[in-house]
């Protein structure tokens, strides 16, 4: 926890030093630049979208909505050299690079899978 905090501070300091330059080099999403909304909207509103959706899906059973953590992971995870998927919350990966930059710890991946699901035979209709 402390290490994380220090790391966050360190990254903030280095980012401030670099200033105007592009602060983060994020892995590109698989599906292009606009998934659910424009990047600016996503950056600002994705926590609310996810939180809203989680209650709708989990408690009411509404499926197939636009915002879905599963889809985030599916689209934003990258593959290592050997083809194995990398966790989106690994350092330098999509979620973590930004969250480290703003020093906010996402709680999602303590429970949620941080790599896309393997395609099972048959699959979903």
């Amino acid at each position, binding site marked *: 926890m402390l290490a994380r905090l220090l790391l966050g501070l360190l990254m903030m300091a280095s980012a401030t030093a670099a200033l105007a330059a592009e602060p983060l080099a994020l892995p590109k999403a698989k599906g292009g630049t606009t998934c659910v909304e424009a990047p600016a909207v996503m950056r600002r509103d994705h926590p609310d979208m996810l939180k809203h959706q*989680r*209650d*709708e899906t*989990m*408690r*009411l*059973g*509404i*499926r*197939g*909505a636009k915002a879905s953590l*599963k889809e985030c*992971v*599916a689209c934003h995870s990258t593959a290592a050299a050997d083809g194995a998927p990398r966790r989106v919350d690994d350092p330098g990966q999509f979620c973590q690079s930004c969250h480290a930059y703003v020093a906010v710890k996402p709680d999602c991946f*303590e*429970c*949620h*899978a941080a790599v*896309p*699901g393997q395609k099972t035979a048959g699959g*979903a*209709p």
Partner: protein
Amino acid sequence: MTQLSRRQVLLASGAVLIVSAAEAADSQSVRGQPASSARRWGLLIDTAKCAADCTICVDACKAEMGLTGHDRPLTDAQYVRKVNVKDPASGHTHSLPVMCQHCAKPPCVDVCPTGASMKRADGIVLVDRHICIGCRYCMMACPYKARSFAHEAQTGQQPHLPRGKGTVEGCTLCVHRVDEGRPPACVEACAAKAKGAMLFGDLKDSSSDIARRVAREATSRIRADLGLDPAVRYQGI
């Protein structure tokens, strides 16, 4: 003997019916619509077809839910288990799978302080792990010992089943499959690899196989005396 084989055939055909998803168009949840209280998902388990040494449903559940375990039987999660029952008077023994019974009046939901333990409109009882604080009162209240506590940090989760340290979990009736119109993993595996002892369906739909069998044949529930109205019914217990 003829009686048994007739029932076996009947059940197998029922299972095939579900697996082939002929009813899928009807039972699949509508995209963007909440689960409906017009449905009540349930199971009917015929213990005559359940062999004591068979754990196909248990294994299927573990694979489906990503329950890897840590070789610690007292703290590892088990969503479904095979319980062996012996009558001490006669020595007669039988075996049956026990999972969350998805009660209509679930004590786990009543006692949960935050409302994390919840029942969906279609009767599926779930733990909302976003607001579960890990107090384990639901585990104290459940008469079926259906719930487990995640005693350690978890890895290898399936995308459809988030699970993590410090929260309570249990059988979801494979809600992720049910919403896609597919039967729970245990039911599918039992039909495909074992004797098809488990039947899944909508208890409120009088035309469904499960509702018809419940209307026609004698079924019972574990600890029916507690008045919890479980959605899992058994035959031969």
